């Protein structure tokens, strides 16, 4: 029998605010445990949550990008359960009245076609803390993450493969990063995903029973867990068994899913309206304001770049992965660099440097302005490409100003008199090579040009050197 996999996603995205959602503690990943806590996020008696506006603004931007219907009134509810990383004994979430309904995630099918994953809703909620296990049999609780603002994006179930599920999450991450709502670092845990998987015979119309895979924190684990869980469910059914609706944990190393709850009852969260927070009121004006503050969206940028800059499609796609990358590239063009060389430099040199330095373009020490001077010098043949790259490297290594470095660099020698002297010297010192060329073996010309460049300490204009050389041989 042939089987289809049905996947539903619940994506948790931590919003990139300065402070936490319900208190004024710093929202910060990787800080010393419990260094960003206060009575509110520790759940002290008497402390009350106070929602911050910027989190709601972030949430509105996310809902606009995903095409949701933003609700004028929404409300927080309490989700009650006991867990050591949840100090109040309840999580403040939106259950009965989420702020956004509907919408969809654009993604690419395995066959390359464009598709959308419909959304049920997005709601706002607070994050929980973290527990880590000690060798002495205890767990240590770090509440730094507690009460950080989260979006939970809940999709409808859809026929999808593992790679397609990962593609959806990639798409959400790119969009949320694009509009500055979420940093999208899965390894830091500010983007996490639960995946609901079920299987159904190809000709069936009703969905099978689903299993929920919790807290997947990489694209690989999303992709692989869907594949592995699909296989497990098919095996269960074909072996005459039934899939149980349950929560399962993904073991990345063993590549298996395992049932999480044993004797524990199914959870009963006892949702009821949070009495400590008034109803959230989002007006049409608020939505307009956020809409107006959104940057140019990736698809619009793609269309514009294809038209204005004549970029080949394959070059554009990687440039759209992060908005700030494209902004930098566009600054180069605004500074007078030709679009083609801006693209070459960015995809070649800059992305390489960012990778090596494990850095984001926002903190890249070389400004687009000074880099543009170098690229223009190359374009105008005043320096060689190699020299340009060396200057960039030098500036990064020594932390020196690129513009100053450029100004103190000798421009390429294009004067035929000076070049002629170097050429003559090299030709006379390399008779073998000259003879080879004369004998029809053109490969040696590169070697000879290289010798001239060496002799001139890189200042000779290589193209002109070659021309002179050919004339003389």
């Amino acid at each position, binding site marked *: 029998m042939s089987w289809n996999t049905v996947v539903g996603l619940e994506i948790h995205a931590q919003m990139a605010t300065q402070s936490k959602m319900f208190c004024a503690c710093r929202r910060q990943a990787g800080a010393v445990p419990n260094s960003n806590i206060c009575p509110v996020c*520790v759940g002290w008696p008497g402390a*009350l949550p106070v929602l911050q506006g910027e989190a709601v603004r972030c949430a509105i931007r996310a809902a606009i990008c995903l095409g949701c219907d933003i609700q004028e009134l929404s409300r927080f509810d309490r989700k009650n359960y006991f867990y050591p990383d949840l100090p109040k004994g*309840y999580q403040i979430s939106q259950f009965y009245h989420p702020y956004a309904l509907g919408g969809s995630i654009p993604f690419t099918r395995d066959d390359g076609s464009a598709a959308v994953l419909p959304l049920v809703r997005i709601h706002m909620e607070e994050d929980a803390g973290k527990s880590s296990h000690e060798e002495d049999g205890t767990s240590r609780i770090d509440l730094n993450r507690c009460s950080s603002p989260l979006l939970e994006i809940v999709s409808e179930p859809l026929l999808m493969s593992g790679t397609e599920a990962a593609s959806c999450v990639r798409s959400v991450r790119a969009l949320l990063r694009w509009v500055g709502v979420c940093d999208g670092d899965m390894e830091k845990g500010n983007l996490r995903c639960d995946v609901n998987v079920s299987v159904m015979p190809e000709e069936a119309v009703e969905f099978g029973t689903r299993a929920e895979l919790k807290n997947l924190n990489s694209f690989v684990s999303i992709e692989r867990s869907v594949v592995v869980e699909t296989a497990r469910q098919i095996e269960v059914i074909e072996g005459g068994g039934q899939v149980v609706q349950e929560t399962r944990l993904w073991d990345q190393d063993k590549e298996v899913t395992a049932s999480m709850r044993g004797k524990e009852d199914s959870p009963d969260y*006892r949702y009821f309206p949070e009495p*400590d927070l008034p109803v959230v009121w989002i007006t049409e004006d608020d939505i307009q304001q956020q809409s107006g503050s959104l940057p140019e969206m990736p698809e619009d940028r793609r269309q514009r770049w294809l038209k204005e800059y004549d970029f080949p499609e394959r070059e554009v796609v990687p440039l759209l992965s992060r908005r700030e990358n494209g902004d930098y590239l566009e600054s180069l063009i605004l500074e007078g660099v030709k679009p083609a060389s801006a693209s070459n430099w960015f995809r070649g040199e800059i992305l390489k440097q960012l990778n090596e330095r494990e850095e984001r373009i926002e903190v890249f020490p070389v400004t687009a302005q000074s880099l543009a001077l170098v690229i223009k010098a190359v374009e105008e043949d005043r320096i060689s490409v190699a020299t340009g790259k060396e200057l960039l490297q030098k500036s990064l290594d020594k932390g020196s100003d690129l513009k100053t470095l450029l100004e103190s660099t000798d421009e390429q020698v294009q004067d035929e008199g000076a070049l002629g002297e170097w050429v003559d010297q090299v030709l006379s010192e390399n008779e073998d090579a000259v003879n080879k060329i004369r004998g029809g073996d053109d490969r040696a010309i590169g070697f000879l040009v290289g010798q001239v460049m060496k002799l001139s300490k890189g200042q000779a204009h290589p193209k002109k050197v070659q021309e002179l050389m050919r004339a003389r041989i």
Partner: protein
Amino acid sequence: MVNDAASSLPDPGATSHEVLAHLQSGKCTTKALISEYLNFLETTGKRLGAVVEVFSQSALQEAEASDARRMAGETLGVLEGIPFTAKMNICTEEGTTDASSAMLAGFEAGVDATVVQKMRSAGAILVGKSSCDEFAMGASNESSAHGVVRNPWDESRVPGGSSGGAAALAGAFGWAIHLGSDTGGSIRQPAAFCSATGMKPTWGRVSRRGLIAFGSSLDQIGPLARDAKDCQIALEVLQGSDPLDATSLSFSESSKEPIRKIGWIRQGFGEGIDASIREQVEAARSILEKDGIEFVEVSLPTMAQANACYQVIATAEASSNLARYDGIHVGKRLSSNDLEELYSSSRSSGFGAEVRRRILLGTFVLSSGYIDAYYGRAQSVRQEIREEILSALDDVDALMMPVSPFAPFKIGERIDDPLALYACDILTVTANLAGVPAVAVPCAFDNEGLPVGMQWLGKHGDDHRLLQLASLWQELNDTWKSVPQGGQS
């Protein structure tokens, strides 16, 4: 300075505003006043079990500082030099805040609740913490981890609850303002039992930040004092929106006109209300009528369901609010190597029987399969109660009924029958469910010499109008002026 301090101190039953004038005229120093009040707390206050902690040292220091400010001619607060206490469920920087529960024994909040900060800024001096029922759940003050509190008018009887300590202090002696909290009558019912004046403000008018939550949508902090004017001055200080409580708001009165037309709530005088209580409140009505106040009969049929509705909503919210006492972040822990065992053994040993009963009911009414039938239905009834009250208040300025259906009862009389205790709340919970303000005032003493109280409910925001009406009553009738014999130190 004043040499013979005692002779120039105010009368034991003096109000805070009388004491303010007394201090202003230089008849005694703040230090002499506070010193004498501390003496009252240490003797009568402790004998009644009404006060748990007394902050003698800091209070005397603040009194000296206040005297110095007065001498230097500095600007003084509106409650300059007035002693005040906070209920054991209101956080204070000094001392402990344990909500009278073993669960929170020794809990140091390290920070003042917003209301305490506001009282201090107005020049009032924190002198101690008053006892209450555990987590403010009770109507007799018999469930406090600090022992029973006694009624100053008959020490074999309960002072009411849950703000029983505050009410006993206010009933026994004057001068001070006592901060209490009212979830289903916890300010008004003990005020009535102890012959004090107490008010539950409009929900949201006074910040709850720093109040240990019981039923958040019902909880409200308010003052207990000698008379309505004291409450009015205190409310002026306490009210206002607080950036640390998102539900706190600034309110204004629905009208500047004094209250002249009162709705007489038929259900407040029906079955289950003792005849002696009915008679006393009816007599009060005649006095007010003679002064030209108009009365009309109103019927609030859904009030019959108010107590049931309250039991569901208050316990549901409490079950959630008290989940934070899990033996991990704050509160008592019984050690165990197993997390689940740690949770349940810590919580079971930390909470008293009544609190556990309420958590159990609250958990049940929210649980899967029952939430719609119980919690959902209660929300629906709450909405009806609210609408009924507001529509009644369209035609009248205030509504009137007794506070408690019966007089203060003997200590131990109802403790084994939780439902008999819940009956104390039947006339008070309505104001909490509707979120409207309510003021309780001494009405009379019954033939056994026990205090009888009555209350007025008003529109949202009409707190001061109600207090004005209460002041009028206190001009017409001087029941509130009495001080119990044993109350004087």
